[in-house]
């Protein structure tokens, strides 16, 4: 509104200025014509030195209301005849000179226009006319113009206001409403809101329709997402239920393995021993040996069942992590091994102050297996060495248990961690082949890794992260 007002004002000012300039020019032109007429009519009066006739001629100027005064000068510049609307001299005594070669000269001064005209008769300067006009007509005209301009301006502004309000109703209002709707949508995340269409098929309406469509799409996507989420949740629920059932079945299976599978073994072992004890003297050495083999096999199967159950228990056990003093735990496991076989001399190097965030019961199982293995596979060494420490692996902290025992062929290192995988004969080193599988499961359940390095008769190192 302000801008259009200023533009209008400037346009009016320019118009007025232009008109003023052209009016002044035309005024000067008209005055020059009048001066020329007066001059021409005064030639004979000048030639015959008849000032009265000249004054009569001048008095005709009375008809032009804007002419205040006029005078005719002789060739030498002295005043010859005068005309004055109001009494009193209005003209100078001597004709002001004008630059040679020019017939007319005019000047705006003190709200008046003064014009000098030389009278030329037969190519000879005969005299001059001095004529003064007031500018009241111009002022009047200017006032009229200003009035018109003001009215035009006012009318234009009113029209602009009207158009603006119509425009606001048509464009600005729907956009303001739309902005408010957008604000509420983003604040409340309520994508069910909609902008109100103007119903006029104009740009705001297109904008609102596009906005609504966008909201529609967001809502649809939300719904699809929610549906997918619910379906996923449902599926997770089902899977969890299935898993729980499977777990329960597994537990029942483990329980029955633990209980029912061992019972016959107990009978076989128990009655074999009863036979040996009660009827031993009736058996020869071979018969006794057979019974001993039965007992050994039975006990071995008992051990296998126990280890297998342990392995499955490790898989199911809930992990409760806390800070575990690995060094202290390593010492206690080694101490237990020493107590079980006090006759063995083993050098143990355990790094101090190693800690990890892990389940202490499960770390105990890891250590029992790893140190148990180190213990077992160094049994044929004169100087057995078992080490526990920390190292870096790919920028992470890794622990290791190292021995200088029988080692293994690195070609089979990936088989080390499989259940019932053994790289040594039972006669050479006893075992069920479940220890490292159990270790691996525990470490995997902690989100860690386990790997082995070694060579035949060069010892083995088991690395793990927790």
């Amino acid at each position, binding site marked *: 509104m302000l801008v259009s007002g200023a533009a209008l004002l400037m346009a009016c000012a320019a118009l007025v200025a232009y008109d003023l300039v052209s009016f002044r020019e035309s005024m000067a032109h008209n005055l020059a014509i009048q001066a020329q007429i007066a001059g021409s009519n005064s030639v004979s009066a000048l030639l015959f030195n008849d000032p009265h006739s000249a004054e009569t001629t001048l008095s005709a100027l009375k008809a032009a209301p804007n002419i205040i005064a006029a005078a005719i000068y002789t060739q030498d510049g002295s005043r010859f005849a005068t005309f004055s609307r109001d009494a009193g001299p209005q003209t100078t005594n001597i004709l002001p000179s004008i630059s040679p070669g020019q017939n007319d000269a005019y000047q705006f001064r003190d709200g008046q226009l003064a014009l000098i005209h030389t009278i030329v008769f037969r190519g000879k300067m005969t005299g001059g006319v001095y004529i003064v006009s007031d500018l009241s007509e111009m002022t009047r005209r200017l006032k009229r113009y200003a009035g018109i301009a003001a009215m035009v301006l006012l009318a234009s502004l009113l029209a602009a206001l009207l158009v603006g309000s119509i425009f606001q109703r048509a464009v600005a209002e729907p956009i303001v409403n739309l902005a408010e709707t957008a604000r509420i949508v983003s604040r409340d995340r309520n994508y069910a809101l909609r902008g109100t269409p103007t119903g006029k098929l104009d740009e705001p309406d297109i904008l609102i329709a596009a906005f609504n469509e966008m909201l529609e799409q967001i809502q649809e996507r939300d719904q699809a997402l929610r549906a997918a989420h619910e379906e996923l949740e449902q599926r997770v629920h089902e899977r969890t239920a299935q898993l729980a059932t499977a777990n329960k079945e597994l537990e029942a299976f*483990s*329980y029955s393995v*633990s*209980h*029912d599978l*061992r*019972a*016959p*073994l*107990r*009978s076989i*072992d*128990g*009655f*074999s*021993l*009863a036979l040996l004890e009660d009827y031993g003297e009736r058996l020869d050495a071979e018969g006794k040996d057979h019974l001993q083999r039965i*007992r050994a096999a*039975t*006990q071995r*199967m*008992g*051990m296998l069942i*126990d280890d297998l*159950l342990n392995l499955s*228990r490790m898989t199911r056990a809930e992990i409760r992590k806390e800070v575990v003093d690995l060094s202290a735990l390593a010492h206690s496991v080694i101490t237990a091994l020493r107590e079980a076989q006090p006759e063995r001399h083993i050098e143990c190097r355990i790094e101090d102050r190693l800690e990890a965030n892990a389940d202490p019961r499960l770390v105990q199982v890891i250590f029992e297996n790893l140190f148990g293995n180190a213990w077992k596979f160094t049994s044929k060494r004169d100087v057995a060495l078992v080490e526990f420490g920390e190292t870096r692996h790919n920028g992470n902290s890794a622990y290791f248990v190292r021995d200088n025992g029988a080692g293994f062929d690195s070609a089979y290192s990936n088989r080390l961690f499989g259940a019932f995988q053994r790289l040594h004969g039972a006669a050479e080193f006893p075992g069920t082949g479940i220890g490292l599988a159990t270790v691996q499961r525990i470490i995997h359940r902690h989100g860690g890794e386990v790997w082995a390095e070694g060579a035949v008769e060069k010892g083995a190192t088991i690395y793990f992260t927790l």
Partner: protein
Amino acid sequence: MEDTKVILLVEDNPDDEALTLRALKKNNIKNDVVVARDGVEALDYLFGTGKYAGRDTALIPQVVLLDLKLPKMEGLEVLRRVRTDKRTKLLPVVILTSSNEDEDRIAGYGLGANSYVRKPVDFNQFLDAARHLGLYWLVLNEAPPARRS
């Protein structure tokens, strides 16, 4: 007369029964052993019901060796009933079972078992266990005073 007190063995497997009796005998435990072959029979003996109707229930066993997996009524249920009855509330009960499951052990102790012994496959170990059992529950342990009726 502490010596005449019986041991109640609750065991459904006849092999285990024979081996347990043998282990007790081998360890010179001379107490009479009453064998109940399921949970209901064990309770019948303790409370003088069923086939033991009319038994003097004031004579409570020195110790009950209780298997967990039993026909008719599970060992843990037997234990629960023994502990909720004031006549047998203080009766020493040793769970003697193949199960090494944590849940069983926790439940057993939770219901007030005095001891939990796992039956080993190796009969020699079983003998050891029986010896410790006998030494503790039949010799060292002071049984609760006999219930006055």
